[in-house]
């Protein structure tokens, strides 16, 4: 068990080191940093002096170690395009993305579980079938087309909701929030639906199939035989047992929500980290790209590590050595 945990942590560390190496190589080999800092009129002596002060003459490994040391402290250098520290820009943009992701996640979970239970209980009903068919379309539509469709319906045709931006935000000591103003809340609706729709259909289908499976088991039949009400059987007994896979998938999907936020943020011009990253790629703003790359890897690797470790704790069969006793 302990060996497994240590091995997983070691693997995660290796992955992060490799990602760091990619990010570092970007800095080191894409465009000469000297070119970026010195103008046209420079002497060879200037170049040499700058190389020395920047530490570019040191061995590769030493430079890489220094780079990692800086990155761990949250120092990713200056954005080429905005001329400000990357960490500062990221901090400024993070609340927008996190709020969007949180709202989408909550939407996806609540509607996904609700509709999943509904379609499982009324499996042959007209409404359930309609929902299942619609969910198929939802899965095959690319995210950006869903966003455009929603903008067309609710912003262009009906004029109910804003099509871009965060609306009015309130600054709570460095954390800007859109939760506190009517326009901020309105602005959240379309992007969060766009972002959450895919995850919602995923959770819905998962809950449905798990529920159908569980409803066939003996203990549910016993519960019915005992004369329990449908509501108690469905929600107290059946739903509880479908939750383990749902929690796993939700955990793993957290990362995807952040990744797909890039697309949603671009469609709705949402001033978050994803839009920042897209702009960084367009303008080859390497410090921003490298920082985003490392940040998102830390997140993904962290989520996967936690999910894996939780698995081992929840499911005794996965604890290799102790399971052999059976």
């Amino acid at each position, binding site marked *: 068990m302990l060996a497994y945990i240590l091995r997983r942590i070691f693997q995660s560390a290796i992955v992060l080191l490799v990602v760091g190496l990619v990010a570092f190589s*970007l800095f080191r080999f894409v465009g000469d940093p000297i070119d970026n800092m010195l103008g046209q009129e420079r002497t060879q002596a200037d170049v040499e002096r700058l190389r020395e002060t920047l530490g570019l003459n040191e061995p590769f490994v030493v430079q890489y170690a220094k780079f990692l040391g800086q990155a761990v402290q949250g120092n990713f250098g200056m954005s080429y395009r905005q001329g400000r520290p990357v960490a500062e820009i990221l901090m400024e943009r993070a609340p927008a993305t996190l709020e969007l992701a949180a709202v989408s996640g909550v939407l996806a979970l609540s509607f996904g579980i609700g509709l999943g239970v509904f379609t499982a209980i009324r499996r042959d009903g007209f409404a359930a079938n309609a929902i299942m068919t619609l969910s198929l379309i939802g899965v095959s539509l690319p995210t950006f087309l869903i966003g455009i469709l929603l903008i067309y319906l609710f912003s262009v045709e009906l004029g109910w909701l804003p099509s871009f931006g965060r609306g009015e935000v309130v600054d709570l000591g460095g954390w800007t929030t859109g939760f506190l103003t009517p326009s901020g809340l309105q602005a959240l609706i379309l992007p969060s639906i766009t972002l959450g729709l895919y995850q919602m259909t995923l959770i819905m289908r998962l809950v449905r199939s798990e529920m159908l499976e569980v409803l066939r088991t003996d203990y549910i039949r016993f519960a019915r035989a005992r004369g329990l009400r449908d509501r108690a059987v469905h929600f107290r007994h059946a739903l509880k047992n479908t939750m383990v896979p749902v929690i796993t998938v939700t955990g793993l999907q957290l990362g995807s929500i952040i990744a797909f936020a890039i697309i949603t943020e671009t469609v709705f011009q949402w001033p978050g980290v994803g839009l920042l990253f897209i702009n960084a790629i367009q303008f080859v703003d390497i410090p921003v790209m490298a920082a985003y790359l490392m940040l998102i890897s830390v997140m993904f690797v962290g989520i996967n590590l936690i999910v894996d470790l939780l698995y081992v704790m929840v499911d005794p069969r996965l604890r290799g050595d102790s399971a052999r006793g059976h």
Partner: protein
Amino acid sequence: MADLPRTGTPAPAAPGRLRKAWDSDIVWSFRHAPVAVVSLVVVTLMVLAAVFAPLIAPYDPFDPGTLNLMNGFTPPMEPNAFTGDTFWLGTDDQGRDVFSTILFGLRISLFVGFMAVALAMVLGITLGLLAGYLGGWVDTIIMRVADVQLTFPAILVAMLIFGVAKGITPPELRNEVAIWVLILAIGLSDWVQFARVVRGATLVEKSRDYVAAARLIGRGSGAIMLRHILPNVLSPVLVIATISLALAIIAEATLSFLGIGAPPTQPSLGTLIRIGQGFLFSGEWWILLFPAATLLALALAVNLLGDWLRDALNPRLR
């Protein structure tokens, strides 16, 4: 078994090759799946339209000489107010025929899709065969890398590869190589599925007698992998390739829509949708609608075809 006609009619005395193929399991199941037939027709038509785009397209959207700015924003099927020209699907802001731009966009989209899947396939099959047949540390390294890549969503991997490659290419070449960078990015983001399936199938095939026999008569590892094992692991690869094609087309459209894919000089369907989105509010719906509908029809048809293929090639699911 495969040669027996499933229908009640008696078999012809000497069935030709064509007749045999027509009665084979796979074609039989295809003939009885209307969704698959329609999908194949749609995909074939689109591929043909893309291949022969220069011959079919009524206008050359990229020849500035034929463009007339006066034709800008002509609605579909209506004569232009100034020039009197009529365009099937209307024109965009610069007077380019939307139908022609879609044909050429389809060409780019399909080209990138097919090439990316081909790259992913070659890479995945090679690594999968090596991992499965050789085992040991080769297997460990390849599958570890695959696991790591699987933790990240493919579209994110493609974005990162695109960003890195864009950074490495000198600025003056960026537009020229953008299409190839796109193929590289999508292809590299998608090889894991192939590698996993091929590795799994190779592990099964490796223990079969024919492999042992080939080894006994002294064939080398390379020959055994390519000539003997590869043909036997190809059918699941075909299914994954079809589904991957749909994913690659959508990935390409997404990247181009985000402005980090096909350059404006070589617009794909995604680029056209990106351009069309700009006219959503001013009422020129056709610039957006037709490319979007084309993309959807294409992705849906390829997906449905993949679904059918998966069911048809996997007897256990029937």
